[in-house]
């Protein structure tokens, strides 16, 4: 199992010093919900500078007609770089990839939609190699998907979960109504004492959970089941916390046979250092029917 890190800055040296060798990188104009996005030239430079690292790209915005030619050109060029994979949201990318018979492996990454094994198998049949499971399903569901799909499964174990994305400029609109300037990219909002973050960029507005997902406990289960990658989204996490947790995760990945006591100790230390025991939906099911049809 590898630790795949989506960095919060364009300077990869911080994470490389922490021991990270696999990166998930945004691409300018085609990535949403991330701090650091790269141009194609910058990606080529990174490949040259760090020939031994693994690179996946994150192309996770909904594409418009006017962007199709551009993304087609980009995908062709990316295909010459020998990267490890492309995380995609829009089915247009899958379509172009297959139409042009491109070789870079595809990772199905429709944020909230990767929720069952049948659809994973559908995307496997369409040529995908991996999928990043949704953050809104339980560990039990994740493990069942792993058992029943041929796709290589990835799970997110650290980050501030993105809850929603709008094409609308919700912060700009709010401040325009107030006849004020939007002074920053990210604002904190509260509902019944719970905090969330709202952030606006060129692709629209995204909402984030205010609690940091700490998936250390889950990591042991995913390790046991041979998940090929687990993913960390650094956005919004302090350097001090990253300095602690990334090497810890790398240490956990070095072996499988951690005793219960060792696991408990590592989980406890992660909770202390990250100041979060939030496990999102890993152990908590959502409901959807409040009305009984009898």
């Amino acid at each position, binding site marked *: 199992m590898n630790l795949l890190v989506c960095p919060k800055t364009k300077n990869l040296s911080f994470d490389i010093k922490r021991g990270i060798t696999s990166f998930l990188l945004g691409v300018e104009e085609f990535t949403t919900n991330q701090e650091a996005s790269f141009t194609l030239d910058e990606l080529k430079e990174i490949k040259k500078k760090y020939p031994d690292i693994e690179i996946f790209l994150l192309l996770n915005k*909904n*594409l*418009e*007609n006017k*962007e*199709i030619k551009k993304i087609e050109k980009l995908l062709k060029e990316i295909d010459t770089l020998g990267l490890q994979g492309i995380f995609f949201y*829009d*089915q*247009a990318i899958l*379509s*172009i990839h297959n139409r042009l018979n491109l070789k870079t492996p595809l990772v199905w990454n429709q*944020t*909230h*939609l990767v*929720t*069952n*094994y*049948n*659809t994973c198998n*559908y995307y496997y*049949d369409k040529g995908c190699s991996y999928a990043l499971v949704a953050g*809104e*399903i339980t560990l039990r*569901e994740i493990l*069942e*998907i792993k058992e*029943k799909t041929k796709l290589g499964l990835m799970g997110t174990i650290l980050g501030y*979960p993105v*809850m*929603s*994305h*709008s*094409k*609308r*400029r*919700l912060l*700009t*609109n*709010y401040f*325009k*109504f*107030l006849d004020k300037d939007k002074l920053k990219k990210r*604002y*904190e*909002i*509260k*509902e019944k004492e*719970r905090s*969330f973050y709202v952030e606006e960029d060129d692709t*629209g507005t995204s*909402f984030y*959970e205010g609690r940091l997902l700490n998936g250390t406990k889950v990591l042991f289960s995913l390790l046991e089941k041979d998940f090929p990658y687990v993913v960390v989204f650094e956005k919004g996490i302090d350097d001090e916390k990253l300095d602690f947790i990334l090497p810890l995760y790398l240490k956990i990945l070095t072996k499988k046979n951690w005793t219960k006591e060792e696991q408990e100790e590592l989980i406890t230390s992660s909770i202390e250092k990250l100041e979060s025991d939030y496990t999102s*939906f890993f152990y908590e099911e*959502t*409901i*959807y*029917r*409040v*009305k009984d*049809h009898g």
Partner: protein
Amino acid sequence: MDRIELLAPAGDLERLKITLLYGADAVYIGGFRYSLRANATNFSMEEIKEACTFAHSLGKKVYLAVNIVFHNEDIEGIYDYLKDAVESGIDAFIVSDPFLISYIHEHFKEVEIHVSTQNSTTNYEAVQFLKEQGVKRVVLARELSKDEIKEIIDKTGVDIEVFIHGAMCTFMSGRCTLSNYLTGRDSNRGGCSQVCRFAFDMEGEDLKFTMATKDLNMAHYIKDLIEIGVRSLKIEGRMRSHYYLATVVGTYRKLIDAIYENQLTEDLVKECDFILSRVSNRENSTHYFLKEADYTDQYYTGRQELSNQDYLAYVLDYDKEKKEIILSERNYFEPGTKVEIFMPSGKTISFTVEVIKDKDGNILDKACHPEEVLRIPYPEEVEKDAMMRLKIER
């Protein structure tokens, strides 16, 4: 040339009959499982069968929404559910989870597959991909402009369906789980608790942060949608009232027919727009159709959603012998009230109520008991299932 389809929602059998009688060409419904309106009344399989029989008797269609994002546990039983729906006479399945595309294509090839707006399809390449998977129709994302819709139609030739009226999601469909995180209800499986209509405290500001959108109203642009080649016009609102559905469906029916019969006038569009704006209790907008949606398309302060008191009574029948309309009361009215009755055929009559009688013929000084059966003298026959509302002063 086939006329554009007017597609209406129905949360139950009664609503389905009303929308079809008032002029919808097709209706979309949800069953007890797999629908994104898990908390609407929805249809049992028996009711789906009855719905199909009723619709087909009028030469109209029924589409079944199977548009949740599946979890593992939802997969079991899907074959039997789809099979029963097909045997009940369903004309198309509306899906969002792509495994269903190949599954339906493999097992029920005779039934059309429509891809839900939940898939957030925003470009021609993705539409082309879906076409190659066997999809007959795509309901486009609601974030597209007129030019973008036209380009998709021109480049793919796929049947395209767009929303024309009703509530809008603030977020991209399929990309919103606010409901999951704030209320534990799964938005992508039909449990959406509409967190986008909540008000949040905003750091450093007194005014609450809100993001609710105004309703969509495309009354002025139906002709444009016909001209660019859209196949189906969809009205939102499986959980809306009978009166709302009759008014909205009937009004768009009138507009569409006027366009095809070269009878469209600016006055008619304005009148229709007025009626549509009044029934919804919310302000309207065209959102992305003409421009990027901006601050004018949202609400920012505590919006009062006033209950609409226009709807006065439902017409049960007409007593030809006594020349009296038989009604079921909905809201208060009294002698002297100026009213209009709009009928499933599109005809509207206006008059002033002079006499109100109870079901036994006793004279009443007012109508104030919902569901009470009343009689109002009127010289000409009025269609069954018509609705009486306050005369709307334009």
